């Protein structure tokens, strides 16, 4: 379990995280979403005790990360796949990390096989592709068989096969009852991976909800085509719907598709098309974070 309470982190004048609170429970994949610079990595670093919060706290399993005796056995983290010493071989890199937490070499071999790097164990880390380094970082996170996992942008640099692998891995880890927090700036990725999402922008919480509710919330309207738009419009507006004509169709809000069909049948009006339309999650995400984008492409004044 991860608890972030009123967390704030300032770097000079910049508020990277500003009064952020959320909780991640075991058993599901929590997506941590926000545009670049929203404070996702800073929050994760605060959870892991790398950055000291300006105020507030970030707790893992009810305590401070720095107080855990063998942290690798409770929390696994992949922050930056490039944060490795390039001169060591993959297996030696993992052995160095494992030994600091009293984890044996046998487990190192196991995780290398689990992430599909058994064949590259002797290869120098500097000679690895970003995708292989991501796998190595995942291996390091799994070394202590921890109950809490944090992944910061794990799909970066992975090929489609690798993306599917890490998605299945995270879902598998959550299904085993672990706490899994995955950050991303890609809604499309989270849509297929996460069960719940925490959306932040400019260091503040925008939304914490389940993926299903997010989809539901941004369901927009029903597109209706009929040979008698004016008649149907009157019928629907009597039922309390808001109807907007759109070329040869009507866009209806406030009534479900079934209610529209029933209303049309009662009025004896034929309906040629009836399509519930939801905003894509990508649109929803952009709408949510619109006001909080740190770096946007400004239109150049002429």
């Amino acid at each position, binding site marked *: 379990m991860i608890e972030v309470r009123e967390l704030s982190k300032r770097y000079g004048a910049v508020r990277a995280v500003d009064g952020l609170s959320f909780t991640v429970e075991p058993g599901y994949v929590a997506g941590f979403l926000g545009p670049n610079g929203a404070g996702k990595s800073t929050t994760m*670093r605060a959870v*892991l*005790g*790398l*950055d*000291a919060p300006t105020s507030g706290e970030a707790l893992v399993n009810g305590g401070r*990360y*720095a107080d*855990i005796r063998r*942290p*690798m056995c409770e*929390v696994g*983290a992949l*922050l*930056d796949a*490039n*944060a*490795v*010493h*390039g*001169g*060591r*071989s993959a297996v*030696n890199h993992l*052995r*160095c*990390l494992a*030994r*600091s*937490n*009293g984890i044996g070499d046998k487990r190192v071999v196991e995780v290398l096989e689990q992430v599909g790097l058994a064949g590259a164990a002797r290869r120098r880390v500097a000679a690895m592709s970003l995708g292989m380094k991501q796998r190595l970082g995942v291996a*390091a996170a799994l070394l202590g068989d921890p109950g809490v996992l944090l992944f910061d942008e794990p799909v970066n640099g992975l090929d489609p096969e690798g993306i599917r692998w890490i998605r299945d891995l995270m879902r598998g880890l959550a299904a085993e009852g672990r706490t899994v927090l995955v950050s991303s700036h890609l809604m499309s990725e989270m849509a297929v991976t996460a069960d719940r999402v925490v959306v932040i922008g400019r260091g503040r919480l925008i939304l914490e909800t389940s993926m299903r509710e997010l989809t539901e919330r941004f369901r927009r309207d029903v597109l209706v085509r009929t040979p008698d738009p004016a008649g149907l419009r009157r019928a629907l507006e009597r039922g309390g719907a808001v109807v907007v004509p759109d070329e040869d169709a009507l866009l209806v809000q406030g009534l479900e598709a079934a209610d529209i069909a029933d209303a049309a049948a009662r009025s004896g009006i034929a309906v040629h098309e009836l399509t519930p339309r939801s905003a894509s999650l990508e649109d929803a995400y952009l709408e949510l974070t619109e006001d909080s984008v740190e770096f946007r492409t400004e239109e150049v004044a002429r």
Partner: protein
Amino acid sequence: MIDVVASEWLKVRTVRSTYYLLLTAVLALAFGGVVSYLMTADYDQSPPELRAAFASADPSVFVMPFTQFAAGVIGALAITSEYTGGMIRTVLVTVPRRVTLLVAKIAVVGGSALALGGVVSFLSYGVGVVIIGDRPAPLAQFATFGDALPSVLANGLSIAVVALVGLGFGMLLRSTAGALTTLCFLMFVVPMVAVFLPAPWNNRLVSVTLLYLTPQFSGSIERAPLTPGWALAVLLAYPVVALVAGAVALVRRDA
């Protein structure tokens, strides 16, 4: 704690730079032997009045500064190689207690540098004995092994001192180039510049530089400005100051 020390020891053994720097020590030994041999050959061909003006042909004069600097590089790299590229964050996630990490690094760097220093210092003395043979002073600095022992041990200690200074600078400056430049400045530039100061400040400043503290501590310089006790105190103050400054930086700053 023991686990973290074991991890740090494994880290030192699994990077190439450590072996290159050990090779440097071997090359320094070979170079010192060659210089010692050339001086001895020159001595043999010189008339007696010139022989009296010879300096000591002890290879340690050349071997120790090179080995000290190599040890300083090992010490600095023990931490700066982790700052370069961000490995330090991975390390601090696995060992969040920073003081524990620091103590483990001190134990590994200090311990291995002390062992290295002892071996190199004894080898250097041995090479000198083989080359100089039974030729008298001033070519041979020490008449017997007993006379030489304090100097040999002090030289061994100086390797560990410089390695720990390198580690402290590395923690403080977080960059290999920064740490090594500072170390190089302190070891080699300050004594050169100090010579140009007006007396008595030139001798005073030179006497507290790293390279000249060791012979003062072992009592092998006549009319040394510092007593052996003071020389040891100043010698140990170097790593203590560097490591305390480095520790404060490591504990206080965000990684």
